[in-house]
């Protein structure tokens, strides 16, 4: 029995946790408490499984295990390495908190089809973990598609015409992207006969048999394939997908789905093409330009959004491209910045989304213009919001500072001063669209009480179920401070350093 928990089975265990949880959820659909406890048990077990692999990976480098042969030269295989663990840790840790929040959110609003909701959520986590741990492109494609399809009912959950439209747009974008991804995999497979990721890239030998242009086109196909990274101009599904319930936007559209896209692109850059080939083909610069463009333009868009969730969505687009920019520098420091920004941004953005959700449920407000005085009604929520918004602007001592610090070091290291300015300008713009929200929330009187002298009542403890929402967001808010002071929590920093050491042969 203990052999089942041996280290080489742990990756499969990690895959099994959400799978079994999803099955149990659908079987216990009629008993909500049991159903939600399956979600909680599944998420905690998943987190523990993922965390338990970290010491081994730090010592031995990676855990590889394959299940069966899918195609000649391609196994259905998992390969846990440092970078994958960062993403897996982030997603699984946040799943616990978001599940708690979901319970509060869904029950407060008495939403319909909650079984479907929790079922799809668990499946989406399966997809995200699978993407993080997969050993080759085909395995990754399998999980990537699971992620796309399982999130579709979540996006369209409200079942209003807008939500259905958002769902359709989501599918149309991401599945078209999936075809490009598939085409990229096929070309890779034809060129080098394998799709296994490697620290040095695997496409280098292909340069002998094919032209540079082909490899550049294939890279473009992969970029379009990882449309989940929401780089411009293929970003527009993301703001539309904000029609989903807030916990979905929080976990999936701030962490699991979009980070799967970013994660995929970084995997392509370093583990498929490799640093030398990227430089030789000039793809680093190309990727950097796309990302820099997105960073700035997304921030400009964000300023003009009145809907709070849409504003956060554009902020997400900006931060995702910021991660891409870090990778595009092809320098060790920039890469560390990109890798640790995946969890750091995850913790911060999820807090912001959870705040938005709590405000929508408790105060009933969805637009930035209505937020006057919310800080007095919901002080804890708005404190968390303020702290993480400051983190987004990379103010120390918050998590965003560390990653931006490394990013700036990276851009100096690779001599790309333009990107340094882009990063600093982005921080300023971040400030422009977060600051008014905070100011309004704390320093204005609520609209209802402006005329008369109605007493301002704190609403966060109005119903016990609200605590399910307020506590998780407080936790993630605190985490985003802790992560700056102790960036090595869950060994995230060690893992990033190790990944970079493997890629660059030393920091």
């Amino acid at each position, binding site marked *: 029995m203990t052999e089942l928990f041996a280290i080489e089975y742990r990756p499969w265990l990690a895959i099994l946790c959400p799978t079994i949880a999803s099955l149990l959820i659908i079987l216990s659909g009629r008993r909500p408490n049991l159903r939600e406890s399956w979600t909680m048990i599944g998420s905690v077990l998943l987190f523990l499984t993922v965390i338990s692999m970290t010491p081994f990976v730090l010592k031995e480098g990676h855990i590889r295990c394959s299940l069966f042969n*899918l*195609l000649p030269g391609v196994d259905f295989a998992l390969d846990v390495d440092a970078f994958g663990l960062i993403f897996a840790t982030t997603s699984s840790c946040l799943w616990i908190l978001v599940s708690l929040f979901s319970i509060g959110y869904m029950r407060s609003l008495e939403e319909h089809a909650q079984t479907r909701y929790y079922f799809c959520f668990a499946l989406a986590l399966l997809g995200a973990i699978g993407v993080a741990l997969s050993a080759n492109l*085909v395995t990754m494609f399998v999980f990537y598609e699971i992620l796309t399809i399982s999130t579709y009912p979540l996006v*369209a959950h409200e*079942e209003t015409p807008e939500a259905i439209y958002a769902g359709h747009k989501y599918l149309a974008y991401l599945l078209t992207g999936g075809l490009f991804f598939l085409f990229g995999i*096929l070309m890779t497979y034809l060129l080098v006969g394998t799709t296994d990721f490697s620290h040095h890239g695997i496409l280098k030998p292909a340069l002998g048999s094919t032209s540079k242009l082909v490899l550049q086109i294939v890279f473009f196909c992969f970029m379009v394939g990882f449309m989940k990274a929401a780089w411009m101009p293929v970003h527009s599904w993301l703001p539309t997908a904000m029609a989903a319930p807030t916990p979905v936007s929080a976990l999936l559209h701030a962490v699991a789905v979009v980070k799967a896209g970013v994660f995929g692109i970084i995997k392509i850059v370093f583990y498929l093409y490799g640093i030398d080939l990227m430089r030789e083909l000039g793809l680093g610069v190309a990727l950097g330009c796309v990302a820099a463009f997105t960073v700035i333009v997304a921030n400009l868009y964000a300023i003009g959004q009145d809907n709070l969730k849409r504003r956060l969505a554009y902020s997400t687009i900006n931060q995702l491209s910021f991660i891409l920019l870090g990778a595009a520098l092809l320098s060790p420091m920039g890469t560390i910045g990109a890798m640790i920004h995946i969890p750091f941004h995850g913790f911060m953005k999820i807090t912001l989304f959870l705040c938005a959700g709590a405000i929508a449920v408790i105060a009933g407000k969805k637009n930035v213009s209505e937020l006057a005085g919310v800080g007095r009604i919901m002080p804890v929520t708005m404190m968390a919001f303020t702290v993480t918004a400051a983190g987004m602007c990379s103010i120390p001592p918050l998590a965003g500072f560390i990653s931006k610090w490394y990013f700036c070091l990276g851009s100096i290291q690779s001599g790309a001063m333009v990107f340094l300015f882009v990063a600093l300008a982005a921080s300023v713009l971040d400030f422009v669209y977060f600051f008014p929200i905070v100011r309004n929330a704390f320093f204005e009187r609520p609209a209802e009480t402006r005329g008369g002298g109605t007493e301002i009542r704190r609403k966060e403890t109005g119903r016990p179920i609200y605590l399910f929402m307020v506590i998780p967001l407080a936790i993630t808010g605190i985490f985003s401070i802790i992560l700056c002071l102790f960036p090595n929590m869950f060994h995230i920093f060690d893992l990033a350093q190790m990944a970079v050491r493997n890629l660059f042969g030393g920091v």
Partner: protein
Amino acid sequence: MISEQFPALIVVTPLILSFFIPILGWWRRSLCLPIVLIALSVCTVFAIGLLQTVMTQGKIHYWLGKWQPPWGIEYVVDHLNALVLFFVSFISLMIAIYSKKSIEQELPEHKIPQFYTLFLLNITGLLGITVTGDAFNLYVLVEIASFTAYGLVAIGEDGAFVASFRYIVMGTIGACFYLLGVGHLYIVTGSLNMADLSNILPNLYHSKVIIVAFAFLIIGIALKMALFPLHAWLPDAYTYAPSTVSAFMGPLMTKVGAYVLIRIMFTVFKPEFSIGMLQVTDIMVWLGVAAMLFGGIMALSQTDFKRMLCYIIVAEMGFIVGGIGIANATAIKGAIFHILSDAFMMACLFLVAGTIMYKTKGHSISDFKGIFRKMPFTAIIFTVGALAIIGVPPTCGFFSKWYLLLGGIEAKHWGFVIALLLCTLINVALFFRVIDKGLYLHVHALEHASEPAGHHPEPHYDEAPLSMLIPGFIIAIAIFLIGIFNQAIFKNIIEFAIPLRL
């Protein structure tokens, strides 16, 4: 050893048992189905036995009545048709289990014995077409399968009669073309045995008669397998036929046609002739591309689920024919694998269509409203089938598309590659339209907001009987298993099934 007789028994058993059905059915109607089940289970066992023998010992030659070919009729089982035999008998067995409830509801009671007689004869025909090694014997069995099919279609709902008549006209023309082709070959070579023909023919490849014969054969088969633009009979016939009939004819008839196409192109004629000399494959790729796009677009415009599936069949035939037309080893492997996987996928979806028909008395897309709540198990089966057609890994549909695309890229046939990817996207739109109907209830309530509130009670659980669900589940699981263990199938069977010298 009885196992030596398997090639003959697999045809003879259902043939003889089918004659007992009307007699026993006249005495007691409840006996019809058990006979069919016995016949088809036995056939499945034979098919598995044959598959095993072929895998261990190679090609089987069986001389009917010990008459030596080329005078006697020879049955030949190699890797390719052993595979086809297996899925034909297995799927028809599943459909037979499924048919009980569906047929009881859709047909008047006195027609049940006739139905099962025709059903079993049709399967006999399909198995015979697959197993035979004689070009003329193949024609006879094609006619057995076709005539029973005309009858089976005609007992369907309103409109089936006209559809069946159209099918008769088109099908007969197809059969005539095939017969003319065989006649031409016989005039020139004096032989009807496929192996014998393929030995004699290479010396005559430059003869005009042979070229004409080849054209006749291919067009005849193309009509039977509903290759675009000769598909016009198919949508009507399979839409109006009883659910059970479309559930086995949809997946099986066209696939067996595709098998015959491969047989004629690469066994009777050699690849040097059909690919090298005539270059008919170039035309076939573009026909395949046209079929994919036409089938996909026509499917998009349907409001009837069964008719939508029919156009998907047209598109899927385009995949197979296109794959054969690419004519490199990878693509032909993909095409053969697609014959297998498409049979299972289509069976899965037509089963769902029948199950929905059983519960709602209709088969339009709007009848899928709320099935995820009302009939969750049917909905799961449907989702599996839909994902397989779209080609989501690890279902079998992904792997056939993988090989077809890989072959297309290898051959640098970008038209085919793009059409296949486009067709995948069309399939996404097609199936998510249906899934939406099944999944989202509130939006329908909004559509009818003018009606007084309270008229939209939550649909309550109302699942189909187990005899319909179990075959569906078995096929759905098979879709996954074929996908996951595709390498075993490729290494042990399909590697040997593709023509040599490619």
